[in-house]
């Protein structure tokens, strides 16, 4: 029987069979960030282990570093500076590739890893961050790990992993006006639940995926973890190779051509069988937004909040009751038109140049609602920032009343520094609507960047298709 893309990625990296479905897998690249990087590196040193292949280990400053203009090592978060300085010191001591606060290559880990050509098709890559799966959009097996596994990967260049089951999700049809790849993944998670992909590695495929530009593919794989999946991959194609070509760490010239020839084989064999298959028709997808505190609690933009009475079991009902109370919404209520306090565009989900261009097209010549207490745009990397500024996008954003920040995770999560206000209702292009994620009791509604932009202009949750 034929092999799936996931089988191929897996088999290429098996160092040893550990029995019972587990393998010792070779890890091609490791990325660290200042939130946990220093803990791993200090522990490793304390245990007397060295970093194996330090040239394959990269470190960036994104999680805790401020995003306010003129930032340095100082942070609004108490003790935040310690994370930055400790990570810098341990990374330099270990001789790792460091993209420091003022480095032109700095940015959100999963954005810069692709942008610099560090992740390549066919690679395995890990990072102590759950959204490492973003990089699966390049045809790489990439997944998030904890600190202990991070130490293991650093010391041995391998990880012991039990092979997940495989799932293929086929997106058929074409996206309608105002519908983005963010809506595709929110729609999927909404339909099958936040644990719908639990225990699986997923291949996202089909005509609607193949039609997506590379940058929009990252958004899909980014949220594979919000679907409970181990990882999500997209078969690499010409779009992918074109994206990778010429990037800093990618092979060049004849070496690139050799690599591409091998990357073309990274696809499902015709008779490959997956453990589970889901087919989604993109004609069913409209702009989608979350109403609750799990990415599975989604709604069509014109939909009404569901009633816990209809929940499939008691635990789900308990979670819905809690979410309704936390979010300050009621069963049967429409979200469209609900007043918001703030808008946030950024994060490893939606902060690339194409996202910013799409937002600029919506907000150009308009202004955010005076009701908004905050409207922020944070580019995914310093390079994205520079590119956006070369195109003058920042002028459009500022004229529309948005703050234009330095690159980083910023208010995607609240580390105790700057955050959204207490109980603020925020429409956000990020990936997690968990309780307190963006600030104390903050009510986060996840949506596409253009839905966030439209909502910011109206001052209430809005259907971008009606903006005209």
């Amino acid at each position, binding site marked *: 029987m034929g092999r799936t893309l996931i089988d191929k990625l897996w088999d*290429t990296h098996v*160092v*040893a069979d550990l*029995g*019972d*479905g*587990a393998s*010792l897998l*070779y890890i*091609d690249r490791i990325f660290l960030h200042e*939130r*946990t990087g220093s*803990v791993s590196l*200090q*522990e490793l040193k304390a*245990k007397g282990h060295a970093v194996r292949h330090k040239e394959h280990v990269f470190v960036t400053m994104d999680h805790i570093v401020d995003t306010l203009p003129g930032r340095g090592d100082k942070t609004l978060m108490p003790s935040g500076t*310690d994370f930055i300085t*400790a990570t810098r010191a341990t990374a330099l001591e270990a001789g790792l*590739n460091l993209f420091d606060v003022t480095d032109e290559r700095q940015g959100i880990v999963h954005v810069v890893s692709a942008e610099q050509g560090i992740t390549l098709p066919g690679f395995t890559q890990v990072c*102590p*961050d*759950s959204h490492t799966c973003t990089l699966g959009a390049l045809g790489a097996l990439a997944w*998030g*790990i*904890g*600190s*202990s*596994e991070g130490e*293991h990967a650093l*010391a*041995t*260049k*391998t990880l*012991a992993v039990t092979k997940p089951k495989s799932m293929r999700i086929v997106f058929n049809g074409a996206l309608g006006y105002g519908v983005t790849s963010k809506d595709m993944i929110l729609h999927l998670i909404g339909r099958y639940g*936040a*644990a719908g992909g*639990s*225990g699986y590695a997923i291949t996202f495929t089909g005509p609607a995926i193949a039609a997506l530009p590379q940058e929009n593919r990252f958004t899909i794989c980014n949220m594979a973890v919000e679907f*409970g999946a181990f990882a999500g991959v997209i078969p690499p194609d010409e779009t992918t190779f074109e994206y990778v070509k010429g990037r800093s760490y*990618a*092979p060049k010239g004849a*070496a690139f051509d*050799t*690599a591409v020839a*091998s990357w073309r084989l990274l696809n499902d064999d015709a008779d490959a069988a997956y453990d589970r298959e889901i087919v989604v028709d993109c004609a069913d997808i409209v702009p989608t937004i979350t109403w609750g505190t*799990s990415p*599975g609690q989604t709604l069509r933009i014109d939909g009404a909040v569901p009633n816990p009475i209809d929940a499939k*079991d*008691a*635990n789900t009902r308990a*979670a819905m009751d*809690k979410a309704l109370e936390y979010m300050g919404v009621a069963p049967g209520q429409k979200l469209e038109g609900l007043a918001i306090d703030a808008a946030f565009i950024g994060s490893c989900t939606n902060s690339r140049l194409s996202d910013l261009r799409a937002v600029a097209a919506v907000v150009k010549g308009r202004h955010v609602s005076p009701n908004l207490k905050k409207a922020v745009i944070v580019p995914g990397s310093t390079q994205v920032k520079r590119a956006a500024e070369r195109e003058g996008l920042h002028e459009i954003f500022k004229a529309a009343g948005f703050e234009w920040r330095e690159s980083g995770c910023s208010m995607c*999560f*609240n*580390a*105790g520094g700057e955050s959204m206000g207490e109980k603020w209702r925020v429409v956000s292009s990020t990936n*997690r609507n*968990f*309780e*307190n994620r963006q600030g104390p009791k903050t009510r986060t509604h996840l949506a596409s960047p253009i839905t966030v932009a439209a909502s910011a202009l109206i001052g209430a949750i809005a259907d971008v298709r009606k903006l005209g």
Partner: protein
Amino acid sequence: MEKFVHLKAIAAPLLRVNIDTDVIIPSREMKGVSKTGLSVGMFANWRYTDVAARAANPEFVLNRAPFDKAQILLTGDNFGCGSSREHAVWAMREWGFWAVIAPSFGAIYYGNCVRNGILPVVLPDEAVRAIAAWVEQAPAMNQVEIDLPTQKVYAAGVVYAFSIGDSDKDMLLEGLDPIGVTLKRDPAIQAFETKDRVMRPWVYINGPA
């Protein structure tokens, strides 16, 4: 790492689906570059009515005796989903938990548990709810018993079998240091690299090409 073989302990029910690691240990509670001192921040937003003042919320299960001595957590689907932060497990271990029983777990959280001596037990939703109902009748007396070598949970007069991967089981039973175990395979890693350098030379490029 301490070994996990057998445990009989008070179990606390927190039956809700999709409890994420931001809930288990909020970002703001991860104040230092260390693995310790985290238990006070565990479930902070649910456990305290005023987080800054650490004012206990009497409604929260882990604030109610005898659940404040619980070593086992009974919970819902997809427990530990979300952020990869191992701090969630460090906080729970420091607080006193040795095992979590749930219908399913976030994958990264599951692995983090095993690497810190906490046993994650997967049982069907009905089983977890039946155990929780039995525990609620007399929490101090109706203690849950878990035996890892035989992969059995004893509760409510029923024996529940659970499955766990061999390598995860060994790691917990022996309290092994996984890095030390893998480094014994160094010849295999070297052999892989030698072969792989020929197959995929672009992996071994050092620095910007």
